[in-house]
């Protein structure tokens, strides 16, 4: 086997390589964060930064351990995740449906698209005061905001994906007698999938962003509430912990999308790097 796996897609193809090389490339992305943590710890310990404004990583770790033991971290993380996923399901589902319908059916596009493009340009976080007036500060308000936040990236990318299907493939499908349902499920949707997944990745970013803002403004649970509450009591370590949890949740969402991409886009040449040698 030659060294063709540098592109990074060929994780399964590296069996015959020296182990230390694999280990090295696996650890390399973590080098910078680790160095930063060490520098930060030293700076906090030596009093270079005020511990009240920027507590040491070990203090944050202690806060993590404490909130894990008393269960509050899990409760808040679950509350946030639940809101995020419900909002994603509603907003993403509607965005997907609108994208497919507008992409396939010209009258729907004429009717809806210019309105949607107009609404899209309103920063959805600017709706917070209005949303609080409408829904108060209960769950509905936050789920509503998340739904709006994820709707547009999914809508736009689904619409684009459906619209940019190769017309030659569509013509081929009709010559070969595919009916409309088969055309949509076998040609159009799978062809739009790479674009839809790009939309999903953007949507996940918007999902956490919206949720953080919504939770810091009005909530009685969730990571955003936890950090705002900690700010009241000057628990900077808990604030930092909240930020780190958000970062981890964001990373987790990204890893999940990549896994989905790798699974559903196996046909794509970009994802086939490691397969050839294995067969």
């Amino acid at each position, binding site marked *: 086997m030659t060294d063709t796996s540098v592109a990074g897609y060929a994780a399964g193809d590296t069996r015959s390589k020296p182990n230390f090389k694999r280990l090295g490339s696996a650890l390399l992305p973590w080098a910078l964060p680790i160095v930063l943590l060490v520098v930060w710890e030293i700076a906090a310990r030596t009093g270079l930064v005020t511990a009240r404004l920027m507590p040491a990583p070990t203090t944050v770790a202690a806060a993590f351990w404490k909130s894990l033991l008393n269960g509050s971290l899990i409760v808040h993380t679950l509350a946030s995740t639940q809101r995020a996923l419900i909002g994603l399901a509603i907003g993403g589902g509607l965005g997907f449906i609108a994208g497919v319908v507008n992409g396939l059916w010209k009258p729907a596009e004429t009717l809806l698209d210019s309105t949607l493009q107009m609404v899209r340009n309103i920063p959805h976080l600017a709706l917070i005061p209005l949303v609080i007036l409408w829904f108060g500060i209960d769950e509905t308000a936050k789920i509503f905001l998340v739904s709006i936040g994820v709707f547009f990236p999914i809508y736009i990318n689904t619409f684009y994906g459906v619209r940019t299907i190769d017309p*030659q493939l569509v*013509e081929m499908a009709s*010559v*070969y*007698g595919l009916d409309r349902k088969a055309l949509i499920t076998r*040609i159009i949707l799978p*062809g739009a999938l790479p674009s839809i997944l790009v939309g999903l990745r953007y949507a996940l970013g918007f999902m956490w962003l919206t949720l953080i803002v919504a939770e810091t403004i009005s909530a009685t649970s969730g990571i955003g509430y936890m950090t705002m509450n900690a700010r009241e009591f000057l628990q900077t370590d808990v604030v930092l912990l909240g930020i780190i949890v958000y970062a981890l949740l964001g990373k987790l969402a990204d890893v999940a999308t990549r896994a989905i991409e790798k699974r559903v886009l196996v*046909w794509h040449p970009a994802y*086939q790097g490691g397969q050839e040698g294995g067969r």
Partner: protein
Amino acid sequence: MSAADFYVPESEAGLPISLSRVGKTFGKLSVLGNFNLDVPAGQFLAVVGRSGGGKSTLMRLIAGLDTPSSGRVAIGGRTVERLHPSVRLLFQEARLVPWQRVGENVGIARGADWQEKARRTLADVGLDDRENDWPSVLSGGQRQRVALARALVSEPQILLLDEPFGALDALTRIEMHRLLERIWTERGFTTVLITHDVAEAVALADRVVVLSGGAISLDIAVDLDRPRRELADPRAVDLQRQILEAV
């Protein structure tokens, strides 16, 4: 259900194609005018001409992808109004669906036993055991073989070929010619091959029609023995010369 089973198509007959006083205009541009052509059942017809001479329009009219501005296109005596289920079209590009495996591409219309039929047809075009590959790993010639298998799997009575070998290298093209000639001889469907390659037309067809300016400028029979292996057959060379003069 073993691989050794000889594949016998259910229907061997081709259908006749008839175009009478067909005109086709795009806006003010007239591509075909008062065009007449009869293709008997089972004939292998090659249509040669320069680009823009109306070849592809002719193909699309027969396939039912376009409707004539005037006149009548008939298949098996019936006027073509939409896509005919026994007509299959091989495009210039293979047009395989990248996210469907080779076997799924061949059985694109699904239907009863599509997997088994796809497997047998793939074996028939020389692609045994490739049904689980992705199209992206195939070469240009293999992709056209898959496209050919996809056209043949439904046992069409008319096969239309729109310069399907134009993008292939010379050796692969000759392989494809032999493959197509063999399958056509076995199955007997009516074939219309659009090409700008005069040698290809003479190597494959029973009859060559030269299309220029939307009208037939030469209609000539190619009465050479099959299978045609003699590339330098003097009769073939003479036919090629006549055709080239008419193009």
